[in-house]
């Protein structure tokens, strides 16, 4: 019997693993079976909240300070802006100078998704969104402007709660 057991260990176990996986995949979903894969266009997995899918822009907060464009490792952010005079806050006050954003483009063909721009932004104008379905047939079409980036603001989730033991954020 030792001979047979050795042969089983050498040749049988592997076939047993594949057969077990076969049975597991064939088993209906309601009994805990099914494949490990997801049939993508029909069913979608939701990425984690923190997933770095796409950068969204809140245009009102942006002052065209260029910090993000300068800190980007591959210079894929293009910003143009001008200064405008806005009506004073209080009646009788001097008119305020406001930075207006003319152009805010991110070239996603170049972007490395490092998130440095989101981090350095001092005015909370840039956010990560887990949205990922924005592929284009032409590489030039991956250059998205501020209206498109603004539309992605809707998909930005709330920041998740932190794990036990984490330091509370001072606000």
């Amino acid at each position, binding site marked *: 019997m030792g001979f047979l057991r050795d042969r089983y260990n050498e*040749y049988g176990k*592997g*076939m047993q*693993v*594949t*057969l077990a*996986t*076969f049975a*597991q*995949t*064939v088993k209906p979903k309601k009994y805990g079976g099914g*494949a*490990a*894969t997801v*049939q993508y266009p029909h069913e979608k997995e939701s990425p984690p909240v923190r997933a770095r899918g796409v950068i969204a822009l809140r245009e009102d907060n942006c002052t065209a300070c260029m910090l993000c464009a300068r800190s980007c490792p591959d210079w894929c952010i293009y910003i143009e802006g001008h200064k405008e005079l806005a009506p004073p806050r209080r009646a009788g006050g001097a008119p305020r100078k406001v930075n207006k954003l003319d152009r805010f483009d991110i070239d996603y063909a170049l972007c490395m998704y490092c998130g440095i721009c989101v981090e350095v932004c001092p005015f909370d104008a840039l956010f990560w969104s887990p949205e990922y379905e924005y592929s284009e047939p032409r590489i030039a079409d991956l250059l998205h402007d501020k209206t498109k980036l603004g539309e992605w603001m809707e998909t930005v989730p709330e920041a998740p709660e932190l794990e036990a033991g984490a330091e509370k954020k001072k606000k």
Partner: protein
Amino acid sequence: MIAVDLPYWAQSLLRVLGGTVAVLLPAGTIVYLFLFKMMSFMQSRLGPMEAGPYGSMQLFAEVGKWLQKEDIQPENADKRIFKIAPLIVLVSTFLLVAVVPFGPDAYFTDFEAGIFYALAVSSVSVLGILIAGWSSANKYSLLGGLRAAGQLIAYELPMVLAVIGVVIQAGTMNLNQIVEQQNAGSMFGWDGLGNPYILTQFVGFLVFMIAVQAELTQAPFDMPIAESELVSGYMTEYSGFRFLIFFIAEFATVGVFSLIASVLFLGGWGIPFSWFGWESNNDVDDWMNIVGPLIMITKMLGLSFLIMWVRFSYPRLREDQLQRFAWKVLIPVSLINIMFTAILKVAF
């Protein structure tokens, strides 16, 4: 005999059509059931799902894709030989299926030396593979072709020796009579199951299936193709339609060898004759010509499942280990098997 008289040309046409179906149908079934679906399930995924219900039309999509592709020939290739090599491989499959009996009267030809012929023509494919490897003008192809030649010749021998056991026991080389012997036979006077040779010739069956695995160049014996070493072996330079022919030939041969193995060891198209009180092939009712092929296909699928299951589970042997295995294990074992079969045949 089927009670219709057909003119000679109609019979020939019927045979050609039947042969084509008998080659392509198993190939398609095996590719879909095992290569697409079973492999996927064993790897915890679903396989093709989009083309047709459960991806059942995927094969047609693949064929369409291959037919559209450019037929690339390497500049230095020996063009004429390069072109006919896949056909030679495919032809050997068609020649093989010619002797397989699917029912008492449903066969293409009734050779007296059927199994002898089958083993002989199965070697034709080696020629195709060898010249494919040589004419591609590619070092990987050449290595693959040479490996294939070495391997197929080495494994021809244990296969023949394994079949000899069956031939001794049946006393005939005619495949239809081997089927008859198994179904009309009895084990120690009990004829409820007939006498399928897998029971008496189990060692022979094992040797035969291992040799078939090697003959089909399926893992663990797939060194001639060895995609991680030789890119694709002798098929490296083939594209489009010619690759498709290689592909069809590969899986059609799986089907045909499974058919032959089921004829030799599992009782072929037959059901134990004692269930219906038949004595020999001549008594068998005509409806067996319809049911027989179905039984054959079932058995073929069972054996192909084994072949594919092993293929998806095992890593690949090395060329010298493969040769050593053939010459030092399989051939001695099958020789001993022949000896015992002969002794028992004489004794009982």
